């Protein structure tokens, strides 16, 4: 297919008008989530099934089937939304498709069994916009994720895409753009929260050519998929942001750094770069102007440390991904020693929105020093696992209970970790904390890139600290002594406490080393590596002491310090624990005879406790 290159800003507007005019708003459209989660849940097969069934029924021309980016409600995948009615079907399988087509496309009914059932009220909700998970979000960056086909630039253009770029190129001087970004209060979404406008200005003012504009897509936190979903689902929003940024800074080349574990993100970005170049919104003489910007994808091998700016740049240069001191900012001397501006995926995706809707609109969202929205990946002990976008300043409670639907099986909330592996764990009395950059830092956690892990009462906080410290120990590049040796020692102490070998003085030593690592490491990985430990020590110190002094793991997680017993009075002899036990350590549990655990056989894996419907199994 030959694509007509748009050689002037007006041509973009005309082309968009023609796209909008030729589309029929009332035409039924099946939006299938093509995010990684739904793909794992069979989303691609559901898409194929729709195409097949529609063809069998002669509806191919009348109904559009569109594979979109991640819708966010990963817990319920594979997701299907029917437009124009806005019906949401969850956990759809290819076998359900015929019924959906017959009932809701050919007819105007609803397939009741495939609608979303709210866990708390058990009520069925038919429309996507009525589902609390979506209704309580404010989608700015993710607004088009569930609507556009990421592999078709026309979808993005029809939704107004690249309009901000045209506006920036024709109506704004570079300084005005930087000024707008500064006034918008946009702060880096990758974790640091540095003022984006200020960063741009220092890159613009730096001397030296060429200048580079980079996108950090090296999202490496376990359980985080915000940037991934944006790159997979709406890659053009990232590209548009980068082109605007490059124009403002005066850069003519750039890289998007993405890890190899994100093959779909790489594929969709590659398609987007090709299509944007063909359309003339990227590459040489963008929209007929004398501004050119070329971008390449650099694939990372998946080291966590390569999300750190200087390590990322070293990696792009083909060197080992190791950080260096940043007394001289990368805006002065960055990639290949040239002025460089690096922003995270989500930060870039915010840029077109700010240019389009204006600073006033943008600053109306959020708190005093944290403007706009933030995307979180909500995971762990939560009913509605998924991708959420909320205004800054929303409380943790609103995210976890109103959007996340609370903790499964009504278990009590214990802690939430924000900011990924190097974030802190916040206890229940922090639930009403407004989520913004400064508030989270103040209580010893951080915004990070937006991972949010919810934990219930069956979570041992010492074990959590041990787990994340283990991750960081493995992911430390090993360059500097504090991070390489210090994090190792932190891990060893945590490991010995969870194994029941801890001493009280170990806790003091642990705290001392944490402080040393935080204050002396080269880069952010080491500087924040102590957060899980320090925050759990601050908020859950009792648990550490229980492990050391009482030789007990109060949460019943650390195997060396846990004995499970079944309360005979509470046990209903239902036998659920018997089935769950992998080592056949439970006897009884039938004919009204309460179940009993043979401690010699028990491996304290906790499967019985999770299976018990009556909370009869205790530590």
């Amino acid at each position: 297919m030959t694509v007509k290159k748009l050689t002037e800003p007006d041509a973009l507007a005309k082309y968009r008008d023609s796209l909008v005019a030729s589309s029929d708003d009332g035409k039924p459209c099946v939006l299938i989530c093509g995010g990684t989660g739904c793909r794992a849940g069979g989303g691609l097969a559901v898409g194929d099934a729709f195409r097949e069934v529609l063809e069998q029924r002669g509806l191919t021309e009348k109904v559009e089937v569109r594979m979109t980016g991640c819708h966010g409600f990963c817990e319920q995948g594979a997701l299907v939304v029917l437009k124009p009615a806005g019906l949401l079907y969850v956990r759809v399988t290819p076998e359900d498709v015929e019924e959906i087509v017959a009932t809701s496309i050919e007819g105007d009914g609803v397939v009741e069994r495939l609608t979303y059932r709210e866990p708390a009220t058990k009520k069925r909700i038919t429309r996507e916009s009525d589902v609390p998970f979506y209704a309580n979000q404010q989608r700015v960056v993710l607004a088009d994720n569930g609507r556009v086909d990421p592999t078709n630039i026309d979808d993005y253009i029809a939704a107004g895409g690249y309009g901000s770029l045209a506006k920036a190129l024709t109506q704004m001087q570079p300084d005005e753009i930087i000024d707008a970004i500064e006034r918008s209060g946009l702060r880096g979404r990758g974790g640091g929260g540095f003022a984006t406008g200020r960063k741009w200005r220092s890159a613009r003012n730096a001397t030296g050519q060429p200048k580079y504009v980079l996108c950090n897509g090296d999202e490496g936190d376990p359980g985080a998929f915000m940037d991934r979903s944006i790159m997979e689902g709406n890659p053009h929003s990232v590209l548009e942001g980068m082109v605007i940024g490059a124009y403002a800074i005066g850069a003519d080349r750039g890289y998007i750094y993405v890890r190899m574990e994100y093959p779909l993100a790489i594929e969709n970005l590659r398609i987007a770069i090709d299509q944007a170049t063909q359309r003339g919104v990227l590459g040489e003489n963008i929209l007929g102007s004398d501004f050119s910007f070329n971008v390449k994808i650099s694939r990372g091998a998946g080291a966590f440390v390569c999300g750190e700016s200087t390590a990322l740049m070293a990696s792009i240069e083909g060197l080992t991904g190791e950080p260096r001191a940043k007394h001289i900012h990368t805006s002065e001397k960055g990639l290949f020693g040239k002025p460089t501006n690096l922003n995270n995926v989500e930060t870039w995706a915010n840029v077109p929105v700010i240019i389009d809707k204006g600073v006033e609109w943008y600053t109306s969202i959020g708190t005093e020093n944290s403007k706009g929205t933030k995307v979180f990946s909500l995971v762990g002990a939560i009913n509605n696992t998924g991708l959420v976008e909320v205004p800054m300043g929303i409380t943790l409670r609103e995210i976890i209970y109103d959007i996340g639907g609370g903790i499964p099986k009504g278990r009590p909330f214990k802690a939430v970790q924000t900011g990924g592996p190097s974030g802190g764990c916040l206890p229940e009395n922090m639930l009403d904390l407004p989520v913004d950059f400064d508030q989270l830092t103040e209580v010893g956690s951080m915004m990070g890139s937006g991972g949010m892990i919810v934990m219930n009462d069956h979570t041992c906080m010492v074990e959590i600290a041990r787990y994340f410290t283990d991750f960081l120990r493995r992911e430390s590049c090993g360059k500097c002594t504090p991070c390489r040796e210090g994090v190792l020692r932190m891990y060893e102490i945590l490991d010995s406490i969870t194994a029941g070998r801890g001493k009280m003085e170990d806790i003091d030593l642990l705290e001392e080393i944490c402080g040393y690592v935080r204050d002396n490491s080269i880069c952010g990985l080491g500087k924040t590596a102590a957060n899980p430990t320090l925050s759990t020590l601050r908020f859950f110190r009792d648990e550490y002491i229980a492990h050391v002094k009482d030789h007990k793991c109060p949460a019943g997680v650390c195997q060396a310090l846990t004995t499970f017993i079944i309360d005979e009075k509470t046990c209903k002899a239902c036998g659920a624990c018997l089935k769950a036990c992998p080592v056949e350590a439970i006897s009884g549990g039938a004919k009204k005879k309460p179940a009993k655990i043979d401690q010699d056989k028990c491996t304290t894996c906790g499967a019985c406790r999770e299976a018990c419907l009556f909370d009869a199994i205790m530590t």
Partner: protein
Amino acid sequence: MDMIKTTIDGREIEVQRDRWALEVAREMGIEIPTLCHHSALEPYGACRLCVVEVTKGKWTWLTTSCDLPIREGLTIRTDTPAVIAARKTALELMLAQAPDAEEVRQLAEQLGTKSPRFPDRNESNACILCGLCVRVCKVVTGKMAICFSNRGTDRKVGPPFDRSSDECIGCNACVDICPTGCIESRDEAGIRKIPMLKTELKLADCEVCGKPFAPIRQLEHMQAKLREKFGDDFEAGCICPVCRREQTAARLHNVAEKIG
């Protein structure tokens, strides 16, 4: 030249902007310990021993001085309790990491670091992963015969892909620069052996005295480098340092006689 004022340990001095704080402090006679620093190489900032306390405006923080460029408004202290404590902890961690490193042991003694509160990580090892060997090979020799592999606590130094490599010219730069002396090199029966790099290179015999003195590969490498500089006809000769000194001395003697 861009000169700016800065204060180190209470003494105000004027220095060129962007000079490294460590160099300036040492010129002022202030002692700052280092293990990963060498004046022939760019700052690296790995050992974290050269840590100092920096104040700028209302902020005070710890940072390494080797890679700290002096800029406007910095006040530096090299002897605060926080600095001393950080250096002690760094040495304690290094002692547990490399119990055989004599240099670390001595520094620890000087600074009063107690014996480590951690178990030894490696038995009989002296490498503290300062990276001097890796950097001198790449930057000064112009080779990449010794490098880091793995990451985190698995990080180690060795030849590329842990195999004997043609990159190594046996120049011993890594051996000489290592602060803890943990790279061994020996010449035996006309062969230079560097076991850590799995290097075994034949030595060239001196044209004058006939004794083996340097790896043939090193001489070839030097010849190529010198030809780059002095043209294709340049011939370095194959003379050992002892004989070269004798020859030079003889030449000087002749010249002196002629002049009278």
